[in-house]
């Protein structure tokens, strides 16, 4: 019997409490916005397809709109809280920056060859890019959503998107982009389930040599 020397390890906080709270509120809000939005889309489809009934929220157009216009406050205000925290607490600066095209290219190639080295609590360049895009899509969804909600009162904003009809298309494209991000996000969580636990407890076990 051989005794394997225990690698010294300790728990470190990798997701601050504010990030965890806003993450889970956002998960609920996005769930409501996405599935009620699909029901609204189905009332007058922009493209030659409709979303399946089982993937819609609200039961009918009036119900779906009620969900969408209730959950939008949760999505926007929670997102705002996250942005304020991210900027003021330098969360964005320390977790998503620096980010360079060279680093993205290097990490993307490594990821595709399954040779990307992961370090607990530190995002690689592809992850930084993906989270940055997700935040940008969230902002675009709110902005294009405001243009659709108030194309007369906020006509300058609607004009920025090329008018009401183009704002519909931008809103749809941003939804599709965020939907793609969510699929990737959930797939990666399924592959590395410990990341789910970390987003709840905020903590991850780190071996001493990886701590710098």
């Amino acid at each position, binding site marked *: 019997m051989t005794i394997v020397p225990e690698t010294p390890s300790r728990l470190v906080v990798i997701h601050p409490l504010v990030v965890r709270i806003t993450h889970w509120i956002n998960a609920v809000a996005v769930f409501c916005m996405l599935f009620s939005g699909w029901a609204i889309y189905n009332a007058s489809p922009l493209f030659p397809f409709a979303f399946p009934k089982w993937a819609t929220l609200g*039961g009918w157009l009036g*119900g779906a709109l009620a969900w969408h*216009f209730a959950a939008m406050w949760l999505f926007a205000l929670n997102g705002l809280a996250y942005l304020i925290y991210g900027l003021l607490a330098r969360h964005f600066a320390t977790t998503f920056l620096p980010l360079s095209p060279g680093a993205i290219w290097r990490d993307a190639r490594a990821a595709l060859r399954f040779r990307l080295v992961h370090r607990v609590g530190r995002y690689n360049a592809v992850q930084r890019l993906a989270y940055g895009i997700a935040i940008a899509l969230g902002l675009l969804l709110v902005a294009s959503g405001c243009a659709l909600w108030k194309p*007369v*009162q906020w006509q300058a904003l609607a004009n920025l998107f090329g008018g*009401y009809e183009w704002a519909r298309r931008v809103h749809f494209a941003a939804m599709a982009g965020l939907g793609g991000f969510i699929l990737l996000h959930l797939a990666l969580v399924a592959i590395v389930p410990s990341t789910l636990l970390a987003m709840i407890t905020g903590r991850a076990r780190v071996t001493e040599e990886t701590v710098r």
Partner: protein
Amino acid sequence: MPRDPDDAARLKALRRDLAPDLARLERRMVLRGGLSLGALTLLSGCDLSTGSNGTLADRVLWAMSRANDRVQQWLFDPATLAPTYPASMIDSPFRFNAFYPPDNIPEIDEATWKLEVSGLVADKAPWTLAKLRALPQESQITRHICIEGWSQIGQWSGVPLRTFLERSGADLTAKYVGFKCADRYYGSLDMPSALHPQTILALDFAGQPLAPEYGYPLRVRVPTKLGFKSPKHIAAIFVTNDYPGGYWEDQGYNWFSGI
């Protein structure tokens, strides 16, 4: 088997009378059915169907809709005009849209039609089309945005509702202007929206008297609100401080629905 022509005519008339009720009933059944089918709507009563005193989800949704009314009232600027468009951008053909199929469009006889006025107004004498046409007219080419999401640009002309309310001696400090329609539709506007310079009682569409499918003989046109806030085939207008609701609003569409 050949059918008695009288029977056939009676059956046709009966089917026509029943169609709106059937459509309504069918829609309600689809709602209930949708609940059990939709994996995301397994909780019953999260679709507004149980009303503002119903399930917790429905109570929250109705309360949020009322809160959104207040936010929109605050966002509404009486001086902001809806964008107008050149005649070259008018959409044709223009969609027919109602809670019933086109063969249920009410048939209205100009000779007997009258616009009733009631509530907080000094002059309750009914209006004829000739009397309405004698008032100052406004024309607009604006975008009609449907709650379903689609939009079309059309041209409407008629009497500014503000002019009509002033001539009727309406209490302009009252909260609501309500409409009753010949097709059982009904609706209401907040007073600031009713007094908006682009809110008109439309008599013409695309330069012609309103066709039956577009609300003959008189409809409201409110380019600062979603399409369902512009009732067609108006038979009565009333001014009130008691919330009048509306055909769709009572089922759950947001009441203010400003754009």
